[in-house]
């Protein structure tokens, strides 16, 4: 999907994102700045092309997940000025969140952690759409949560709003 942003290394500032599983992603500053978290961090420590800053990421953001986030940030750093304009960008966004469940949840978390607001909007909406009209059991299964309710506790919530379970 991504056409990549292979720009000539003309001394432009770069930053290296390192995942817990050891993979490194070298990105330019425009891409990194799509993330509020990285932007804040880099405004304090700085980075250069000769001696790029290496930023380690938490274990929950795997290289596969980070790949998606980087793909999004690169495309949006280039903005709608590229071939296809805003329409192509919107289509790119739509296709980006067509992910399997685990990947979608992981990318949502990564977008929240890295503070990429539009990506968080996109993935959160996709999650909200996915659980729309699900039964309680289905929501539990989707998020892999086991109920720890007593029968009484469940009854209390159901009685607050009986029509929701008709």
């Amino acid at each position, binding site marked *: 999907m991504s056409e990549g942003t292979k720009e000539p290394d003309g001394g432009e500032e770069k930053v290296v994102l390192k995942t817990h599983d050891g993979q490194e992603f070298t990105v330019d500053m425009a891409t990194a700045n799509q993330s509020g978290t990285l932007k804040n961090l880099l405004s304090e420590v700085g980075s250069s092309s000769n001696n790029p800053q290496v930023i380690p990421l938490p274990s*929950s953001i*795997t290289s596969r997940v980070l790949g998606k986030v980087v793909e999004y940030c690169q495309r949006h750093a280039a903005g709608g000025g590229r071939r296809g304009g805003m329409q192509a960008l919107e289509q790119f966004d739509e296709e980006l969140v067509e992910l399997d*469940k*685990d990947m979608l*949840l*992981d990318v*949502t*978390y990564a977008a*929240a*952690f890295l503070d990429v607001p539009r990506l*968080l909007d996109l993935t*959160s*909406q996709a*999650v*909200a759409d996915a*659980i*729309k*009209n*699900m*039964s*309680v059991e289905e*929501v*539990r299964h989707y*998020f*892999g*949560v*086991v*109920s*720890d*309710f007593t029968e009484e*506790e*469940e009854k209390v*919530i*159901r009685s*607050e*709003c009986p*029509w*929701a379970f008709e």
Partner: protein
Amino acid sequence: MGVASSLVKFCFVFTLLDGEDLVSCMLVSRQWRDTARDDYFWKCICAKKWPSISKRPPPAISYHKLFLTFSRSQPLQPLPPSKLSFNTLEFFIDLWSEQTLIFSEAVSGTVLRRGLKNPPPGIPDALKIHLDSTDYKMIMQVEPRFSIPLGQTIVVSVLVSRKDTNQIARIDIHSYLESGLGFPCYSWRTPLTVSPMSLALR
């Protein structure tokens, strides 16, 4: 990966859900229940369902309670003797046309007037008679004006609150829409009529 099991990271999703789905989320586990009880999420839901409600300070009851009480029609109840004045009422009126919000205001009861002094030219006779009649009918003028073409599906939501007691009621207006008179096709200041007889304050 374990990310999925940790709810706190997905709170943002809660702000995008419908009330029914958030109720389902409350039943997932204790942690989910305690998180989803936060009135912020219910405020998001109420603001989508009744956009005009966010034009005033929060209601005396929580947004959660507001949603649970008024998202469905209430069974009809015998009306108490009326001691109400429009001066103590505030209406939260939202109008959607084909799912687009076209009108959303918090309207003080003092704004409502009986009858329309200068009916606009070119309105159908049936509507003129409707506006002139001495039914229980209050009218307000709307700026900016908007029009609703015939044949469009209109959804109207009206909540009313009493300023003296902070009670809120929902007004059901299905029969009103079925009359076909309420929303004529003309592009003046659409009169919005509310019958106080249908107020059942809880």
